[in-house]
């Protein structure tokens, strides 16, 4: 099947910043993303778990598939939000079906 190259960007960010990140992505022209829940994790700021939490606690994982040429715009937009916060950004090479969508 015909596929097209793309980049898969995964941003793990604090839940209270979710709306800020997606707004920034949208402003940077990224219209497609998927938000996955995160149960817990560990990093420089320690270990945490979602269990029993109330309010906008925890983190979410935002996954974007984009055309490679738009990667830098996305990363800059994302980075401005993540910068001072707890969070991780990773990029993988990917292929997508239906390139017209990205």
């Amino acid at each position, binding site marked *: 099947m015909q596929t097209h190259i793309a980049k898969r960007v995964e941003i793990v960010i*604090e*839940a*209270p*910043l979710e*709306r*800020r990140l997606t707004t920034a992505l949208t402003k940077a022209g990224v219209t497609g993303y998927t938000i996955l829940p995160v149960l817990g994790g560990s990093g420089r*700021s*320690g*270990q945490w*778990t*979602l*269990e*029993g*939490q*109330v*309010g*906008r*606690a*925890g983190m979410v994982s935002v996954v974007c598939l984009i055309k490679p040429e738009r990667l830098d715009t996305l990363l800059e937009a994302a980075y401005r939000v993540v910068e*001072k*916060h*707890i969070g991780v950004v990773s990029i993988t090479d990917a292929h997508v079906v239906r390139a017209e969508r990205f």
Partner: protein
Amino acid sequence: MNEILSLTGANLISPIILSFALGLVAALARSELTIPEAVAKGMSIYLLFAIGFKGGVAVSAHGIDTTLVLSLVAGVVLSFGLPMLAFGMLRLMTGLSNIDAAAVAAHYGSISIVTFVATTSVLKGQMIDSEGYMVAVAAVMEAPAILSALWLVARSGSKAKMEPDLMRELMLNGSIVLLVGSFFIGALTGEKGLAEISPFIVAPFKGVLCLFLLDMGLIAGRGLRQSKKVLSVGAVAFAIAMPLVSSFIGLLVGMLIGLSLGGIVLLMVLCASASYIAVPAAMRVALPEANPAIYLTLSLGVTFPFNLALGIPLYLAIAQTVTGA
């Protein structure tokens, strides 16, 4: 004094306090007992809806008066002012950075609705009436403290992110909307509305509160276990001194505006309690450099159990003594 002790004793062996203790002990012993996030959120929605609704019904029954307006104003002023006090005390008692101190201060200017709810239970057990609109006072005290904290940071030269969006988010945060909204629903539908849904929001209320406190105990215990290192003696001392001082301010203000005994106790508790739901989320946005382990552990791990177990009966006893009731 004897009375205080016996009230404290009675308070300590209530199912509510013991449920919190169970959660605390389970978490410290590293039991894998957990309550799903969705269930915990569901219980908090239930509690906010019930407490707001009942407050509204009480207001619809007793009517509006100047004390109500004064109380709301007092709430806003206290929420703005207490962080300054907290910040000053933190600078004296701890070595926290400006930003960490401001973030902690925001929590102590805001309120813990669960402590408020537990107090209404104790008051009801003692047959002490209170003003229904104290729920509305609780609602208005949630957010202002956050602005004070940002101002404290800005003043000390650091740049706090006061985004345009943040203000709206603070005012429309889930718990404020639910509390104020159900307060209005209660006020509009009155006793008749309450009669329709009281088997849901009145009868099982205390039981739900037990399970919710079990969860709070689990979270507090997990927090304490993990943040032993970040907690200095000074910080822990602050987390106990601050509620004592601010409850005293609440006492004065409550007497000044002419609240009933129950109202005074509730205002004391609002002043004395520290937020651990709404404010932490706001701080992650507004002051991301502040260390969440510090403010969460102080507010949920130290001040919350202190108020729950010792504070509430103490404030009640003081208020009774001072007002001569």
